[in-house]
Structures are given as structure tokens and as C-alpha cells.
């Protein structure tokens, strides 16, 4: 290959005009930059996080004393339903997608995702489906049948209002975003890698996002189908779940949990990926057992499809089936345990620095240890029957879904926001935030195990005095308020960091992976002026410095060097060994993804208000968007 390493004249100005989005609102609605989209994902998800948090605190206010009258039972039902819906669909899932969007292309050493317009589309779907669901709060008709929406309670007969329609339509709507996002992550991981980044050199975070994306591809269709079946029963009078017409309510539970349990790992696996990036950096040592850890992430992905029935142990299924699912639920502890020992071994042999991200990682490990142990406990049939639908289960899944997912996300904020914003977060506030959150978390959720043993059922809006539950409930409410305060301290650390945080520089933590190899923080629009060449698992820790690839004059390597940054191009590589294959043109700004998403949004609103005209308008806009997208592909690539 002949090398043409020409650095075009007036390089800086040229790239600025080529990569720069239009200013203001125009750029906001038309940008396809993965960094901008990733940041937006994170900010938007955090808005939903704080709304869901306030809902939790109102519930705790109601439960802190016996026979309290803070909210009515009807409102309480809405609160616990929407708290769950928002935390799962509108915070945990999208915030992890946001980090994935921002970090994965950087860690792979490329200039954008494989499908940048699809990426913009998945963000618009997320924000519109979020607005769709949250608008139920504005009109005081939030879903109230539990976040899992079991039939027959949620059928039209027993939930006549519009409340559950927000759930059924909203879940299907949000599922589009998760699915196209996963397609994008899978193709990006396989096809957009810098030269030398073979499969056994992928950063752990990329492994975890890949495993998550495969789980999404195979699990999310089940919940999409289930929620649309429920809506068809509710809106059109079909008979999927209506036993009087031969339908089956049990079928609903199978479909829901076929997605619902992999979903736990869809959230947990990327969180472990974050931890697996943070711990080696602050232990100043390579991750111990890289291959075992990566294999565990993939193994969890597979086994997660064989455990869903453990949510249905109390439905009276055949004993053999339940034993098999019980066994699978025990087995999944093995890959999780392998990961855990990899982290311990890394710290054991390293020199640990107690920065805020590391504190969150350690807090995560302690909490996840407890959540994992109670997970093994509820996988055992007789034990599960004792604690089923009690506060023990509430404690268990908050240790897993709040402790083992939200703590890594906060750690990731302190770890990666300096790269994303260019400023360090305030360490003193960060540490205060961690300890407040950690103590508050355990005060809030540990006593729930005991309350479960004492017989307090979940989802009840109040309880009489004299059952011995009062003191623990007070402790829980104090703990949850503390946890809330701790999250606000992180907001303070963020605001303070943005105003007068120390400049982060390119690599403030002296970390190992390629996102820290960009010239500046935040990275330039084109990420890398020249694509880096990877010579090891930890490019920035290898003996030889990362070197830049140079452009060839053939189609496979033409975008490697600065000419690629000028032409808004990035190389595409072969699936396994990351050899050069072809050059991809990164699309320019386009409104099409926004209008397609908007059309779908109008379509779902039309179904909600049961107005044919609105449905048709939505479909027409969406169809016009799709056709335009397919037709003017070449125009957007310019």
C-alpha cells in the first residue's frame, strides 16, 4: 500500500466547518454526532431519575408511620408502578445506552457509530416515549397496575381508565429505541474497530455492551409483543389473555418475564463493564483474568434466557420445570462470581487509589455481594415461596437494580464526565456524595429484608400499628431521604465541576483505553485526527506509545489518517481481526430521524386517544420519513 500522508492546508478550519453542527436548535434536532447523542441520553435519563426518586420519597413518606394518609391508595398504586417503569425503561436502560454511545466508538478508535442516523433516531424515540409515559403524570392518570402489568388486573374490565394504556403503548414505543440501539452497538463493535484491536483486545466495557446488545435483540421482542397484545385486548377486544375466550393470562407472565429476567442482566452487565474499566485504572494494574471475565459476560448473556420462570414459582407450574429454572438461577451465580473474583484479584495485586469512582466501585461490590446472595436464596423454591411478594423481594431487587446498577453509573459519571466535559468533578463533594448514598442505601434497603421475614407484603399502601414494623419503616424512610440527598450532592459536584473544576486534560486518571487517547477533553468532533493502531489490550499502558495509522490510497485505508478527518470518513474493518476493509462516509446533519420518530410518536398518541385520524397522520409522517431516509441516503452522506 502506498502512503499518502498529506496534511491538507488549513486543516483545522477545514475540519471545523465539515464536522460542526448547525448552531442552536437546528443543530439540536439534526445532529448525528455520537458524543452529542450520548450526552443527551445521559442528561435526559437523569431527569427521569430524579422524578422517579421523588416518587419513591413520597411512597416512603406514606409508609413511615402506620395508617398514614399522605396519598390515597389509588395514587400510591400509580407511584409504585411509575417508579418502577421510569427506573427500568427511562433511567437505567437509556443511561447505559448513553454511556455506550459516547464511550464505545472512542474505545474502538473510530469516528462514529456504524449507523449515526439510526443513533439519532434511537435517542428521539427514547425521549418521545419518555414524554409519552410521563405525560400520564401531568394528567394524573399514571399506570397503576404494577410495572409488570399482570393480566387480568390490567385488562379493560378491571383497569378501565387510560392509565394502563400509557404503559402498554409506552413500553412498545420505548422498545424500538432499545432495539435499534442494540443493532447499532453490535455492528459498531464488529465492524468499526481500529487496526490491531482484535477480539481478545476489546475493552471490558465494549464486551459488556456487546453482551447487553445481544440480550436486547433476543429478549425485547417478547415484551414488545406482550405489551401490544395487552393493548390489542384493551383497545380492540381481542382475546389473547381473556380466559373466557380461550386466552391465557399465564401466557402473559411467560412473555413478560422471558424479557424481564434478561432485562435485569441487560442493566447489570454494562454496569459490570463500567466497574471492570474503573477498578484496573485505580488499582494501577491490568484486569486479572481478562479472558474469564469476558467469557463470564457472554455466559451471563446466555444463561439469562433460562431463568425467567423463577419469577413465576408461585403460579403452580409443573415441579420439573420449576426445578430446572431453579437450577439455572443458581448456575448464573457462577459467571457473576468469576467476575467478582477478577475484581478482587485485580485490587489484591494492585496499588489502590481511593478516588471517587473507585469508592463507587467498592460500594457496588459490597452491595452486589449482598444482592447476589439474596438472589441465590430466592432461586431456591421453598425459600422463594416463603418470601414471595414480601419486602424481602423488594430488598433483593433494589440491591441488584439500584445498588448494583446505579452505583456503577454514578462511579462512571465521576470517571468519564471529565472526558466528556473537559473538567474534573469536585472530589470532596464526590466523596461526601458516595458516603451519603452508601449509608443511606443500606439504611433504606437492608431493613427491608427483615420486614419481609416479619411478613410485610410489597405494594401495600399502609399498615396498622402493632405489627412490629414501625421502627424499621422509620429507619427505611430516613435512609431513603439520605440516599436522595447523596444523589443531590453529585449534582452539586457536577455543577461545581462545570463552573470551576480543574481542566481534565486528555487523560486525567492515567487510564489505559483509547477514549483517553483523544487529543483533548472533550474529544474533537472527529475523535481521532488519525486512527490509532492498537498493539495490546491496554493501548495507553503498553511499552510502546500508541501510533497513528496512515492513509493509503485504496478504499480500505483511505480514511486512516488526517485526510479521513477532513473528508468526514471513518474506516470499516473486518469482523474478527479488525483488518481494513472499506471506508464509510459519516452522514451529515439530517432531520429525517427526528421526523420519523415524531411520526411514530403521533401514531402512539393516536392509539392512546383512540382517534383514527391521529393514527393515520402519524403513520403518514412516519412513512414519509422512512421513504425519505431510504431515498436520499446519498444526500445525507454529503
Amino acid at each position, binding site marked *: 500500500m502506498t502512503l499518502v500522508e498529506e496534511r491538507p492546508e488549513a486543516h483545522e478550519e477545514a475540519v471545523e466547518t*465539515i464536522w460542526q453542527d448547525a448552531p442552536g436548535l437546528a443543530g439540536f434536532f439534526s445532529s448525528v454526532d455520537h458524543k452529542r447523542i450520548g450526552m443527551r441520553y445521559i442528561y435526559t435519563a437523569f431527569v427521569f431519575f430524579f422524578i422517579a426518586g421523588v416518587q419513591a420519597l413520597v411512597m416512603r413518606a406514606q409508609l413511615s408511620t402506620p395508617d398514614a394518609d399522605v396519598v390515597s391508595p389509588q395514587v400510591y398504586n400509580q407511584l409504585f408502578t411509575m417508579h418502577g417503569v421510569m427506573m427500568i425503561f427511562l433511567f437505567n436502560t437509556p443511561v447505559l445506552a448513553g454511556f455506550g454511545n459516547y464511550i464505545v466508538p472512542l474505545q474502538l478508535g473510530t469516528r462514529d457509530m*456504524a*449507523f449515526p442516523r*439510526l443513533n439519532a433516531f434511537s435517542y428521539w424515540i427514547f425521549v418521545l416515549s419518555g414524554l409519552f409515559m410521563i405525560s400520564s403524570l401531568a394528567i394524573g392518570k399514571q399506570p397503576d397496575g404494577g410495572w409488570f402489568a399482570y393480566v387480568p388486573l390490567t385488562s379493560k374490565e378491571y383497569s378501565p381508565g387510560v392509565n394502563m394504556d400509557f404503559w402498554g403503548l409506552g413500553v412498545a414505543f420505548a422498545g424500538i429505541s432499545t*432495539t435499534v440501539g*442494540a*443493532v*447499532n452497538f*453490535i*455492528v459498531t463493535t*464488529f*465492524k*468499526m474497530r481500529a487496526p490491531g484491536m482484535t477480539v481478545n483486545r476489546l475493552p471490558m466495557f465494549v464486551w459488556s455492551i456487546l453482551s447487553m446488545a445481544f440480550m436486547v*435483540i*433476543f429478549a*425485547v*421482542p*417478547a415484551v*414488545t*409483543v*406482550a405489551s401490544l*397484545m395487552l393493548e*390489542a385486548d384493551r383497545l*380492540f*377486544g*381481542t*382475546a*389473547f389473555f*381473556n380466559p373466557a*375466550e*380461550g*386466552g*391465557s393470562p*399465564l*401466557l402473559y407472565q*411467560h*412473555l413478560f418475564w*422471558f424479557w424481564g429476567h434478561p432485562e435485569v442482566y441487560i442493566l447489570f452487565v454494562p454496569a459490570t463493564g463500567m466497574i471492570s474499566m474503573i477498578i484496573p485504572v485505580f488499582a494501577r494494574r491490568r484486569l486479572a483474568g481478562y479472558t474469564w471475565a469476558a467469557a463470564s459476560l457472554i455466559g451471563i448473556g446466555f444463561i439469562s434466557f433460562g431463568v425467567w420462570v423463577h419469577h413465576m414459582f408461585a403460579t403452580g407450574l409443573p415441579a420439573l420445570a420449576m426445578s430446572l429454572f431453579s437450577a439455572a438461577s443458581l448456575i448464573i451465580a457462577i459467571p457473576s462470581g468469576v467476575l467478582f473474583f477478577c475484581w478482587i484479584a485485580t485490587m489484591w495485586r494492585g496499588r489502590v487509589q481511593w478516588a471517587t469512582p473507585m469508592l463507587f466501585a467498592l460500594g457496588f461490590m459490597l452491595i452486589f455481594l449482598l444482592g447476589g446472595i439474596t438472589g441465590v436464596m430466592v432461586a431456591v423454591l421453598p425459600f422463594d415461596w416463603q418470601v414471595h411478594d414480601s419486602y424481602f423481594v423488594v430488598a433483593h431487587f433494589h440491591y441488584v437494580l439500584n445498588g448494583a446498577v446505579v452505583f456503577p453509573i454514578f462511579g462512571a459519571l465521576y470517571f468519564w464526565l471529565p472526558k466528556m466535559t473537559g473538567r474534573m468533578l469536585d472530589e470532596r463533594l464526590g466523596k461526601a456524595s458516595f458516603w451519603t448514598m452508601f449509608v443511606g442505601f443500606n439504611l433504606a434497603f437492608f431493613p427491608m429484608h427483615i420486614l419481609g421475614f416479619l411478613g410485610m407484603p410489597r405494594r401495600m399502601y399502609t399498615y396498622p400499628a402493632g405489627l412490629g414494623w414501625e421502627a424499621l419503616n422509620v429507619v427505611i424512610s430516613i435512609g431513603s431521604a439520605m440516599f436522595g440527598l447523596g444523589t443531590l450532592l453529585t449534582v452539586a459536584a457536577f455543577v461545581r465541576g462545570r463552573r470551576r473544576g480543574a481542566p481534565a486534560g486528555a487523560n486525567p486518571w492515567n487510564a489505559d483505553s483509547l477514549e483517553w487517547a483523544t487529543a483533548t477533553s472533550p474529544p474533537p468532533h472527529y475523535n481521532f485526527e488519525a486512527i490509532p493502531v492498537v498493539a495490546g489490550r491496554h493501548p495507553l499502558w503498553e511499552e510502546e506509545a500508541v501510533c497513528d495509522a496512515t492513509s493509503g490510497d485504496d*478504499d*480500505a485505508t483511505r480514511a486512516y489518517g488526517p485526510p479521513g478527518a477532513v*473528508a*468526514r470518513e471513518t474506516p*470499516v474493518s*473486518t*469482523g474478527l481481526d479488525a*483488518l*481494513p*476493509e*472499506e471506508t*464509510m*462516509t459519516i452522514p451529515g446533519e439530517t432531520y429525517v430521524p427526528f421526523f420519523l420518530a415524531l411520526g411514530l410518536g403521533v401514531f402512539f398518541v393516536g392509539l392512546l386517544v383512540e382517534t383514527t385520524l391521529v393514527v393515520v397522520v402519524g403513520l403518514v409522517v412516519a412513512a414519509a420519513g422512512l*421513504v425519505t431516509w*431510504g*431515498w436520499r441516503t*446519498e444526500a445525507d*452522506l*454529503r
Partner: protein
Amino acid sequence: MTLATAEAVTEPTRSPETGGRSIARWGMAVLIATEAMIFATLLSSYIFVRAASKEWPLGHIEPPKLGLIWFFTAVLLGSSGPMFFAEHGIKKGNQTRLRLGLALVFLMGASFLGFLAYEYHELDFGIRDNAYGTLFYTITGLHAAHVIGGLLMIGMLQIKAWMGKFTAERHETVAVIGMYWHFVDVVWIFVFATLYLSAQFG
């Protein structure tokens, strides 16, 4: 970017040396995987509800008639043939084979849809009657929606083919939409086997 290079990217290309698959094909493959899961979920639901029922089809509904559906199954599956014909044609730069093949695919797909509409008209049960009717119409309807989507794409390909947008080197869109069309054909085998054939053995 100059005008010359802008025109050069009207169709994604792939490197002849490595023979790898383009990102568009990877994307379509993953999309097909998740679509296949949607059909798997619905067909499993059908089998689940059927296994829990004492009679099948429910409530005096006759099992679906075979006969003509065999013919139109053959038409739909056979439409993969002209699709291959068109793909291989444009690989050699043969515009006539591309246009002819795509036109044939469109006709065969449309006649399948036409028959389904006729069959719906003839059936004496509705989607609300019972769980059998609900599942029958939902699954065949979802498949028909995929055929419609496929026909729209084939139609758009046809227009582009007549405008001469594809060449021997640049024809990834044909290959990618071809993948989708083959998927719509193959998934019908499962729908047909479950809804039509197995229902004969009440």
C-alpha cells in the same frame, strides 16, 4: 468534499479483496434476528394457547383449508428465485436482469397478498371471536405487514433500478433488501407449518 467524490458514495461499496460483508448487511442480519424473535414469540404463544385448550381450533371454527394456499405458498417461496436472479444479474452489471427480476418479485409478492385478502374475506370468524381467531389473524396479519413492507422496498429498488443507480460495483442496497425478502419468505414456512398444517390435526 468535491462533487466528484460526493457522487462516488451514492451506493455503499465493499472491498473486493477481503470479500467481507458491508455494515449494511450486518445491520440487516441483526435486524432479521430480532424480527425472527417476534415471530418466534407469537408462534410460541399460539402453541402455548393451543396446548392449554381442549379443542383446536376453538369454538366450532373449521381448520384452515389447504388447497390454494399450497399454490400461493409456492409462489411466495418461489419469489426468492427472481430475487437471486436480480442480485446475480447486477453483480455482473446486467441491468435488464435486475429490472426483470425485481418486477417478478413484486408481482409474486403482490399476488400472495391478494390471495390472503381473498382468504380473509372467505373466513367466517373474526379476530375478536376467540383466542384462536385472535392468534390466526394476528400472526398472518403480521406476516402480511412484512410482505407489504418488503413490497414497498422492492418498489423503491425498482424505481432506482430504472434510474440506473446500480452498477456491478455498487449494489449493496439490492443485496440488503434481498436479505429481508428472503427472510419474509423463510418465516412463512414456519407460519404455514404452524397455522395451516399442524391445525389439521386438531
